[in-house]
């Protein structure tokens, strides 16, 4: 338990904060993107921006699995529950994502869709065992961290001969999303999103290792520091990025050495590639169709692929017109740039996906940072 507090020590935070203030050059700005929703959450929850000099700015990236799910994917899940009569097992944070026709999984549940909240894919397996006469579908979302458990579950289902279990696979890949941002016109040509470096994901990197980021560092001349999800990790990573920028370096550094190695978890990687293969293209909310950015279940495991089992056709659906999630996920806009932020769109009544997950930029700003928009007096 002490482990947690050690990484939240205010005294150490002050020292790192002083070091950052000391090393930033007053004549330039530093714009860093934290890719991961986990970092976005930590930064907001612990008030990290208060400890940074004014010329160091953090830009929220697209690494929030709930936020990047496009409407069409939620629609598929809803259809499984309402039209196919399947038991749909999902993580709690997908329940409120707005979908087509004013629905969400939560509203579909109120319409008597059998939608169950689970904490892990193993819960879904258990539900399948307990309900042999029902189809049970696990709504698999997430980046590389959540993929190995899904692979294990599919293998387990086969080993047990479970005939009523399948997976709606929406697993996405981190490196393709980073690449997409670096290739976006805003970053490349227009320079509207000045990006001086990345804080790389913590848990994802324990699986894929630090090597996949080397390409970005070299090819795009952007420093990457992989950091843990504790606020001190984030502070330390910012300090390391400032140093790289000042020294004109662009390399991959690893702040999270207590868990991340260059190769990552090879066993998990093999497991994943046994069950999954690359999708040619996948729609991301905000980024649009991104080539080779997601996984699908291999033909050898087709019986566990809900898309095939239920002959699901993917239908892209445009976002709510007012919603700026797309631009926010690409780092082009801030939550407060959205006209309906905080008035029409709130966590209770989200209009876009960034307001749903606690890792989403809009939800994080609404829940933790809103006071900055109107300063209080004592």
């Amino acid at each position, binding site marked *: 338990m002490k482990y*947690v507090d050690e990484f939240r020590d205010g005294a150490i*935070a002050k020292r790192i904060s002083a070091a950052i203030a000391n090393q930033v050059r007053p004549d330039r700005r530093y714009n860093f993107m934290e890719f991961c929703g986990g970092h976005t959450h930590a930064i907001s*929850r*612990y*008030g*990290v921006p208060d400890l940074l000099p004014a010329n160091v700015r953090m830009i929220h990236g697209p690494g929030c699995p709930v936020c990047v799910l496009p409407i069409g994917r939620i629609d598929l899940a809803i259809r499984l529950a309402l039209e196919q009569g399947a038991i749909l097992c999902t993580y709690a944070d997908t*329940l409120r994502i707005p979908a087509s026709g004013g629905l969400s999984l*939560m509203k579909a549940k109120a319409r008597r869709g059998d939608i169950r909240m689970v904490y892990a894919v193993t819960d879904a397996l258990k539900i399948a065992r307990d309900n042999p006469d029902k189809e049970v579908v696990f709504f698999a979302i997430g980046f590389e961290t959540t993929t190995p458990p899904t692979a294990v579950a599919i293998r387990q289902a086969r080993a047990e001969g479970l005939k009523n279990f399948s997976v709606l696979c929406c697993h996405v890949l981190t490196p393709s999303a980073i690449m997409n941002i670096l290739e976006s016109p805003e970053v490349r040509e227009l320079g509207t999103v000045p990006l001086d470096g990345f804080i790389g994901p913590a848990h994802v990197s324990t699986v894929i290792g630090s090597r996949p980021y080397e390409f970005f560092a070299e090819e795009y001349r952007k420093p990457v520091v992989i950091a843990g999800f504790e606020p001190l990790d984030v502070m330390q990573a910012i300090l390391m990025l400032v140093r790289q920028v000042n020294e004109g370096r662009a390399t991959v550094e690893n702040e999270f050495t207590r868990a991340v190695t260059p190769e990552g978890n090879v066993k998990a990687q093999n497991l994943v590639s046994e069950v999954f293969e690359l999708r040619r293209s996948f729609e991301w909310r905000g980024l649009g169709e991104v080539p080779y950015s997601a996984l699908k279940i291999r033909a050898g495991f087709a019986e566990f692929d809900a898309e095939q089992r239920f002959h699901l056709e993917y239908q892209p659906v445009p976002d709510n017109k007012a919603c700026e999630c797309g631009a926010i996920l690409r780092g082009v806009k801030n939550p407060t740039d959205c006209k309906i932020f905080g008035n029409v769109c709130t966590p209770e009544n989200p209009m876009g996906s960034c307001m749903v997950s606690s890792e989403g930029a809009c939800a994080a700003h609404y*829940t933790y940072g809103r006071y900055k928009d109107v300063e209080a007096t004592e």
Partner: protein
Amino acid sequence: MSGQVKKGYVRPLDNKHGRVDMSHGGGGRAMVQLITELFARHLGNEYLAQGNDGACLPPGNGRLVVSTDSHVVSPLFFPGGDIGCLSVHGTVNDVAVMGATPLYLTAGFILEEGFPLADLARIVESMARAANEAGVKLVAGDTKVVEQGKGDGVFITTTGVGFLPEGLHLSGDLARPGDAVLVSGSIGDHGVAIMSRRENLSFDAPILSDTAALNGLTANLLASGAHIKVMRDPTRGGLAATLNEIAHQSGVGIHLEEAAIPVKPEVNAACELLGLDPLNIANEGKLIAICAAGDADKLLTAMRAHPLGREAAIIGKVVEDPNAFVQMKTRFGGRRMVDWLSGEQLPRIC
């Protein structure tokens, strides 16, 4: 509930292996038997024994305070308590934090067909013990049975009645800039105890629910002479929800110091695992009090003098803020808002 039934007219209730069936709610003999042999046996008192459609209570001292609460907690038995004592504590506390002395309770039970009578007996015994300890009497009750699959074992609704002495006025709209905010002990214990049971998390020291009747503590606080303006028990939605309610009612802001808020290390660890924030988690034996800054130390001393307030702390202060934001200086040195939890992460916590 009536106790006027001839003894020995039917086999006694099988408290070991019996189960609730539809006849237990049917208004016939089986129902009367359940009431006499199980409910009245444990919860009986002179008012329940009146045996009429309503209980007739003596006049009391001051204004009447009434509060009602339904309990649907799952699991029914959890570390540190069960739905029985919880249904007493929850309602007693709502009356007590008004500044009133809780005296009477009513209870409505919705039982699911098939529920083991042995479990029901444990629950009723636990209610009786809790009511006894809190010094309140169960004066009226009702039982209904629903078909299997239409309930989840037992749901209990309790209503509490108490008297508030003349001249005493506590209300959520009385917080003023400068006032101090106190909490009577560590937060998040109840919700985490339930969640860790549901999620099968095990810790070296099991996390126990803090469920407890607070009327002893509130009586001591009121007797301390400190000018208390607001008292609330932060149940569902936790400290965050309760403080936001007060901020809105009073039209003020509240500034908290994270480092001052007591949270048990194991509760913190479990929250970390479950992705929860202790500030949003339900408590069933804690209260928040707001008083003038000058009285804060006196109130803190009074809290700590009571067994349920040993870990009490001053956790923040009331500030002027037309937006009624609750903000917190994090242990880390930054600042952030403390908002209502949106959503439904913890259903059926109480």
